[in-house]
């Protein structure tokens, strides 16, 4: 996050813009983890192994779900910080 939105994110409109950027980043990861690694790239990734898992298969049935949990956790934490900054004006 850049320094300038840090300075004015107590303003509701800047808060919303900073929020949209968080959403964009997290939804990008959401798409890559599920549709990217678990579906579109599953066949090339299956040529690689992760222990006993073909990698594409692992992303489709395990990894994507773990990424989803991580994303929602990061989102809740990140928004707590944005909320706190908005209240501190």
């Amino acid at each position, binding site marked *: 996050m850049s320094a300038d939105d840090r300075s004015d994110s107590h303003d509701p409109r800047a808060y919303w813009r900073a929020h949209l950027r968080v959403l964009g980043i997290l939804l990008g990861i959401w798409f890559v983890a599920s549709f990217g690694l678990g579906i579109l790239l599953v*066949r090339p990734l*299956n040529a690689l192994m992760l222990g006993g898992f073909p990698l594409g298969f692992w992303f489709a*049935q*395990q990894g994507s779900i773990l990424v*989803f949990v991580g994303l929602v*956790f990061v989102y809740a934490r990140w928004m707590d910080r944005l909320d706190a900054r908005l209240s501190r004006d």
Partner: protein
Amino acid sequence: MGIQGWTYLIVALTFLLYIGIAVWSRVRTTAGFYVAGQGVPALANGMATGADWMSAASFISMAGLISFMGYDGAMYLMGWTGGYVLLALLLAPYLRKYGKYTVPEFVGDRYYSQAARVVAVVCAVFISFTYVMGQMRGVGVVFSRFLEIDINTGVVIGGAIVFLYAILGGMRGITYTQVAQYCVLIVAYLIPAVAISLQLTGNPIPQLGFGSTLVEGPSAGVYLLEAIDQIHRDLGLPEYTGAFVAGKRSLIDIAAITLALMVGTAGLPHVLIRFYTVRSARLARWSVMWALVFIALLYTTAPAVAAFARVNLIQTLHQTPYAEVPEWFTNWETTGLIQFNDRDGDGVITYGEDPETRELEIDRDIMVLANPEIANLPAWVVALVAAGGLAAALSTAAGLLLVISSSISHDLFKSILRPGMSEAQELRLARFAAGGAVLIAIYFGINPLDYVASTVAFAFGLAAASFFPILVLGVFNRRVTREAAVAGMLAGIVFTAAYIVWFKLLGWGGPEDWWLGISPEGIGSLGMLINFAVTLAVSRFTPPPPDEVRELVDRIRLPSGH
């Protein structure tokens, strides 16, 4: 004590627990009845959401389905968890900040239109009824298989329990019984999974055992998944881990179904309404986080159970003389869930999947139900699985019934038909509507519609094509108008319903006729895009929303307290 004795004991104890919670948490206000007084802690709400979400199908059927689908099962796993990311980021905190009681109420206020609210009520009631029918049936099936009680009696007993705690406690009663039900169902799911993982791979964590080597049998020392792929090649079946090969779904269809399930999940009213029950938008975000943690616990275990079951099933049964089958096989043969037809008359089981030549007829549900017996676990674990299946079905049914009740009493009567009602009258009506909904659900549990399986595709497709786009745009686009929202919802629903009715109910055409190769299960994703496109287009040609609506949108975008 035998399996039946244990099952009676454990099921009776869990039912007493649910009733006890219902009595303790009974409510006297409409806020208590609809949204549990908005005082549920995030962790408890997460657990309740997990139980609310994981239905009889997730608990009993999903692992068995994946076991026969291999890679393709990922569409359920990703679809039914990835939706929670959308829910957390795009919907739950704003709906909580908006702060009233129901989803149709938000639609009505944001789109300043009773017509939009009525369309939303119809969608919510329809989606919830299609869903609840399967749950009541699931309750009856568990009763009949484990306790040898008639299915219909089982449906009535389950209905009576839901009736009691939904009527007494409303959302508050439902929430705290769901917390208890989550604990029962997850313990019941994990114990057999851990035991089987240990047996097959020596690793107690199913998620890791799934990627470990087998410890005994003809493939000892080989990675579990590699062994399954080898067995599949030997039998002439597509590889378990293989994607988009002959005999499996195409890439576009997997992507479309995954998207439809994700978006449908985020648009299901009984899931959305759970996030109205916490104190603030911030806690709504954290409760989605907890919900997804609790759901992921089961959803990452299910594909491991699926793979274990695959190995167990084929290695213990293929080329085994019928006279030497294990005891669990004979136990479950009496229920009709597994059957041997000795087509070639040699007395030996030959595994295969071609309906013309296969010798085993297997109901997918057996993969979870018979697991404890396959793993030689004690009788009380079998009983716990029965209680877990009941907990999964009852908790989901209760959440759905509350949506039906609040849509009717709050959205139809209080706001449209009889606005002058007092709170006491509204609460009485809400209880009455919940009771009526339970009776209808019991009726359909006893007389299931022929197409129950395809109605699930309906529920998700419609949730994806109706609610999701207009809820998201309602928050993220201030310019979207009431005319646009009604047009978008109708376009999405009509398109999706017509496609599903055409291909599934009427059967007018097979996979070669599907648009872009998308099956009816996945068509909700196209319906959603149509809804988005129509809503955005119509908004450009209709007068902008009034100032109050813009202020409402500005307000729900900010955290609680602003």
